[in-house]
């Protein structure tokens, strides 16, 4: 595989609104043809960053290089970048076809080419039967596809999507996540999606950036971020994590009750400092084998059946909060547990991540 080319370089970009710093010196590269996610809680600066990429905000500092050219001060109508708005922002007085044609008319393309390109994108997005409808006559999912078609038909170098699935119900979201990925593959355009939904970015993104308080915490593949979070916040924000507070020792963390959780200690943490040892719920085994290094006993407080798996809340002496343990339905059937049961939990030191408190 050839080295992926950088399409967009965000270079030490900051944005201040008065005394508030919304984006604080973020640098990251987005590669050609990738599906990139900007993830973070609300107020983390992801939307401001997106609006700077679209051209609706100008950075207070830093450069935004598209194909090596600084576009930080280029107006939105002069950038090969299109944005799919969270509200969809479809023109209510225009039909679906007129909405989709609008951007090509602005490019002053010949009518024939506009027609054929619009027809093609309406076919791809399965909107042909609705071409003459007004936006108010469409369902949420259809509106979303019109917004997507309207942005895609311009064949931008970069397509920005602001919480594109936010307005859809859960079942439709799942379908549209896969649909968006398929479309992205089909049209070969770089997608940058903004979302606060960590599950969504795990599913869709090739790479993702986690933001908090205007700063970039980690930028990597979903797998790496999930398995090797950069810090405690990322570990907590992405997926579910069990935390055991304690003090750092040579080969792990000693919990308040004196139990030792074995795991690899990061070089930056010196023995004696406060830290948390953490482990993902799916890495914990019920009734572990004898040689499992990390183990504890606890009481099952609650059970939640999710179809695919069973989630247990287990009160242990290790942490004030109960442990969350995920057991496959299959395993749960073989050895049923119920509320109030005493259970034994075990996990490998390789699955333990240790972070500064």
């Amino acid at each position, binding site marked *: 595989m050839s080295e992926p080319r950088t399409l967009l370089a965000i270079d030490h970009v900051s944005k201040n609104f008065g005394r508030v710093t919304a984006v604080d010196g973020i640098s990251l590269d987005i590669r050609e043809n990738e599906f990139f996610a900007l993830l973070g809680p609300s107020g983390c600066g992801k939307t401001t960053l997106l609006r700077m990429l*679209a051209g609706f905000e100008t950075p207070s500092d830093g450069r935004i290089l598209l194909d090596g050219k600084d576009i930080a001060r280029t107006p939105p109508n002069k950038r090969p970048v299109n944005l799919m708005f969270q509200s969809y922002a479809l023109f209510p*007085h225009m039909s679906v076809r007129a909405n989709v044609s*609008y951007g090509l008319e602005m490019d002053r393309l010949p009518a024939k080419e506009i027609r054929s390109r619009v027809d093609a994108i309406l076919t791809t997005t399965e909107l042909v039967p609705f071409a003459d409808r007004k936006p108010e006559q469409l369902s949420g999912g259809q509106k979303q596809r019109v917004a997507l078609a*309207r942005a895609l038909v311009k064949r931008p170098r970069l397509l920005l999507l602001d919480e594109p699935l936010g307005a859809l119900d859960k079942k439709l979201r799942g379908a549209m996540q896969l649909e968006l990925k398929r479309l992205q593959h089909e049209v070969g355009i770089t997608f940058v999606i903004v979302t606060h939904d960590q599950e969504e970015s795990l599913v869709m993104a090739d790479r993702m950036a986690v933001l908090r308080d205007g700063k970039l915490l980690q930028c990597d593949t979903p797998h790496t971020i999930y398995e090797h979070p950069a810090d405690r916040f990322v570990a907590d924000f992405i997926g579910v994590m069990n935390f055991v507070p304690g003090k750092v020792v040579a080969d792990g963390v000693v919990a308040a009750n004196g139990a030792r959780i074995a795991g690899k200690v990061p070089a930056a943490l010196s023995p004696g400092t406060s830290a948390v040892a953490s482990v993902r719920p799916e890495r914990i085994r019920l009734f572990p084998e004898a040689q499992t290094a990390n183990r504890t006993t606890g009481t099952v407080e609650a059970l939640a059946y999710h179809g695919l798996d069973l989630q247990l809340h287990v009160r242990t002496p290790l942490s004030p909060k109960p442990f969350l343990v995920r057991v496959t339905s299959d395993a749960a059937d073989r050895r049923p547990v119920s509320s109030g049961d005493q259970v034994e939990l075990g996990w490998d030191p390789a699955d333990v991540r240790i972070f500064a408190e």
Partner: protein
Amino acid sequence: MKHQPSRSSLLMAPALVWLTALMVVPCALVLALAFFRRGIYGGIEYTFTLENFGLVFDPLYAGIFLKSARIAGTATLIAVVIGYAAAYAIAAAPRRWQPVFLFFAVLPFWSNYLIRTYAWIVLLNREGLITQLLRWFGYTGDPPSMLYTEGAVIAGLVYNYLPFVILACYAPLSRLNPELAEASRDLGASAMTTFRRVILPLTVPGIAAGAVFVFVLSIGNFVTPALLGGGRFQMIGNLVYDQFLTANDWPFGAALAMALIAIMLLVLMAQALLADRASGHAAQAAGSADG
């Protein structure tokens, strides 16, 4: 219990009584008046005739109708341009300032129409404020004649009815999703094209409502042309006034008034039809979305 009056018709009753007693009956009386002859020494001769309506189309009077329409049309155009711009600026201001700006825009309304119109006499007078201002800047020629001109009448009408346009245009402008304009820019449109193709079409109902208001109130106006126009037959309103109170020709005055009412009704119906078509679109849209 077949025709028990519903609650809504009961609620409507006071308004209907009011309208009938103070609008329909007087209008019917004026209409009836228009079909009689003028008595030789004033008064009314109760013989049926259509000649009052024929006289309305006499070039002399038709000309006054046309002139009134032109003055009202010009005032409407100017009021719409100024009012829309003002409403746009207010809608673009920070949210918490918008009510303050609207308050100031409507403020003149709280004073008397006559007083507001007299203020223009003070302004436009031969030795009025504007002339004094010119002198202060070193102008030494004859004072410009501004008062008692068509321009003065138009200025007075625009000034008096501008708040209607601002309010009518502000409503759709403030409700407009700002992301629509951003989407247009994002898709490659300049600010001007965005205004022409997105913002303007979506706020046309407000413009139409404001424009109809100014036009209808202007074409029948008689206070402003009387005070600022100075002439005798500036507009139809003054003509009607004169027929009733000076010339003592009530039947002809009634015919003129009816013609004026007919023009206003036509304009209002045209606007209602346009508005109905717009909302009919929406209703139809909602219906087929369910299907």
